């Protein structure tokens, strides 16, 4: 029974964090750039 509780608790924490992560990144939208030349990336 203890295993079930532990599994449910871990699942709940992961689901909570996943929801928070999704909500955090879902709101901002990408702004299309308007420059013809671009770098390969930023580090």
């Amino acid at each position, binding site marked *: 029974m203890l295993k079930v509780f532990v*599994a449910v608790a871990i699942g709940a924490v992961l689901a909570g964090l996943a929801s928070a992560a999704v909500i955090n990144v879902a709101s901002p939208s990408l702004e*299309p750039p308007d420059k013809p*030349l671009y770098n390969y990336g930023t580090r």
Partner: protein
Amino acid sequence: MIPEISVGKQRSLLVRLSPALLGVLLGMLALGPALAPGFTLRYDMVFVPDPPIFRDLGGFPRSVPSDLVVAVLSYPIPAMLVQKLILLGIFLLAATGAAALVPRDRTAARLVAAAFYAWNLYLAQRLLLGQWALLLGYAGLPWAVRAAAQSGVRRFAIALIPAAVGGFQAMLVTLLAVLPVTARHPERWRAIATASTVAAVFSLPWLIPALRSGAATDPAGVDAFAARADGPFGTVGSLLSLGGIWNAEAGVPGQGSWASATIRLLVSAIAIWGFARLLRRSRDPALSGLAVAAALGLGIACLGAFLPDALKTLISWWPAFGPLRDGQVYLAPLALVLALGLASFARGRFGLAAVVVPVLVLPTLAIGAFGRLTAADYPAEWRQVQRIVNADPAPGALVSLPWRAHRVFRWTGGQVILDPATKLFARRVVWNDTLMIESRESGTIAVTAEDPLARRVGALLAEPGPAAPRLAAAGIRYILVSHANENEFLLKLQDVTPIFRGESLLLLRL
């Protein structure tokens, strides 16, 4: 390592196919909008309509033979569909491969291994950098490891096909995993000889052009492409969580937050513990070979970050060390170790529930990493230009301007992509393969062009006065200019007659 089914146990078709179904499901969830009609374009992932089969590649063989395979497949099937099949195939191959390394009667463990290997930060970041050819090697890696642990040339050759299609990076990553496994094989020397010979034969398509290209490797690439911290736990913490890619723009949204990074690192720690336990119990030589490969991969990934000068010296001494500059690539065996380690805890129904853990740990890879992967179609003018140039039998190269490798178009939704002109035409395309990387610490890093002809044409373009006669003398027949109204080189090409003028493309013939 080589799973044996218990005698007398019958497994339903659904159970047998479950890793494949899970792989396709995860692929559909990750790709999301990228599966809509159109091409998915992002950084190195550039697929074009009707890619020519016989291309004059010249220069350094970057997309060899992956582009050729895509071109051949695109002959009977539309190229955009080929792309989607390849991307979904990566998830399918990765999931089934990881599952194939787990005993067949442990369904829950097979599915957890499949889920983790097909849904982790390594795969996500490389996908967002558009490195589908590398990911083919990553997806085929468990199959290659499995074949190396067994015996037989034919089996190993078949398992190595994804890496062979992917090209040099995919093959190197696969060899890193395979060679330590063969070194632990009971018939060690025979296994090593088989693996090396097959890999060498499959590498010829890129090895021969690479040796003949006269390409140079700029040691500055070490500063540009070394692994970096992409979360709060430093470079090593990022690498252990399968992150740490050099390009900050290839990150999965939200991955750098404390909560997300902590959970990922915890999962990695648990998985490493699980793998160590598995190793101790089974004493499987293939597993210990895989552990060596993972440690070596982690070491290579740390090399550029912690000993950059040593790596630069190696590259200056022999350019063949160049592929080590992007060391994070070599984390692929570690990803497999973590998948197997995590799977070792999965037993019974509760173990089955752990299949969702990789998705919950990295939820923002879903739906095309929240819009980072989308589908777009080329405007008609690109196809028109392609038809004009490919219909011309006269020899001569095409120069693509502006003189920079990467582009952003409104029709790609603002995604940065490698210039599509590099793949559209049957003739030699000369483009500036100098890579520009913006570093927050040291400003702009320019990794010098590898193609000798590109360096020569770049110098001709930089000279003052009309450029057309100089370019024609160098064997150039066409100049394709995108974003023509913002291109400084047009001032040097005023005496050339345009043969096509579209909304954003201008084609000049010398």
